[in-house]
């Protein structure tokens, strides 16, 4: 897909704009939707990332 930037701008752009890549993919967009942040005063942020644990803490199933 041709990017729309070069046709929109009337000034000349550096050549690397012609080689513009798409950022991310469908998959990364999907993943982004699932990212949750929690507010945490202790760490002085409203955006503590909820990271899914790297293992199952219990194995009941």
């Amino acid at each position: 897909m041709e990017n729309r930037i070069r046709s929109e701008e009337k000034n000349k752009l550096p050549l690397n704009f012609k080689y513009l890549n798409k950022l991310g993919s469908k998959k990364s967009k999907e993943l982004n939707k699932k990212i949750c942040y929690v507010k945490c005063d202790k760490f002085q942020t409203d955006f503590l990332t909820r990271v899914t644990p790297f293992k199952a803490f219990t194995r009941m199933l």
Partner: protein
Amino acid sequence: MRYFNLFSSVLLTKGASRILISDLERNVSELQSLDLYNLTEDLKLNSIEDVIKEYDRDSGEIINEYIAFLLENEYGFISHNNWDNSFNQLSFNYDSSDVISNLFLELDNFSVLHKIRSAMDTIDIRYLVIYSIRQLSKEELGELDFIFENTPLEGIEIYCPYYDQINDAFLSYLSDTSKRIYKLVLYNCDTITFSTNENLKFSLEYTKDYITIKNCGIVDLKYFNTNNSKIFESKNYNSCLFKKIGIDIDGNIKNCPLMPDHFGNIRNTSLEKVLEMAGFKKYWNLTKDHIEICKDCEFRYICTDCRAFTEKTHQNKEGLDTSKPLKCGYDPYTGEWSEWSTNPLKEKAMRYYDFKIKQ
């Protein structure tokens, strides 16, 4: 002369009858033969040409195939004249900035949750695992995240009995309002009143079975995921009990709610005090390398341990139970899986834990 170099993110774990190759960058593991392991050991000491020379002509072929396999999977690369020593070994240290990684709670009364919330002013708990013996009302489920608002608690997972008001509307409400819930498991779920919705912010599982907390400790391939944190942890610490704290249905504080030793009750002591008590962390440093049978198993660094239910056959000098987990049906000496609960050798331990013996 050509030399074979194994990438440092590829870990070979030798078992009694096979090896497991764990790829810490691609997060997968695969089983291979001991022959392949022996070959990689040889290739650490000799050039490829010399190794091939050592074997007879027929095996030379096989060796080339093995090397091709290692290269194809990008487990290693070839260098010329010598091994490439500019690449360094990976460190297997496990350094994590959490104080308590997970609290495993057997829940009945919500007042315990408020106790835990106030403990969090002084100790950080990263994840909370709730096993509820009773149905949780919609209000209660909705309230969970709210109780831990503004704390460093990152995630909550819940196991609770299903009932028919847990439907799509409620689940998407819960997903929208609860940031911390990352997993919800509904048990005792015969007919379902919800669709398995992809858009929920948590993973949703359900089962017809009636799950009791005593189900815990299952050893199964489905839990053998591979990643570097898991492997670093299990090489240095107990893969289940390190940085774990448990509270049973009566409020007793333990390393895991299914273990016998308790260290006071949430009603009259603090989690902080318990953490300092002698013996509370006694299993934290017990790795699979020191557990009988497991120490000969190729899965030992991706298998999560259980100390609450074991075969009760071994004890070390410090009095720690170093027997194999009871609920493992794997025999590393034969490389075969069987149903653990029908294994006659386990009957004694099963009686001890009061498990039904299947005929």
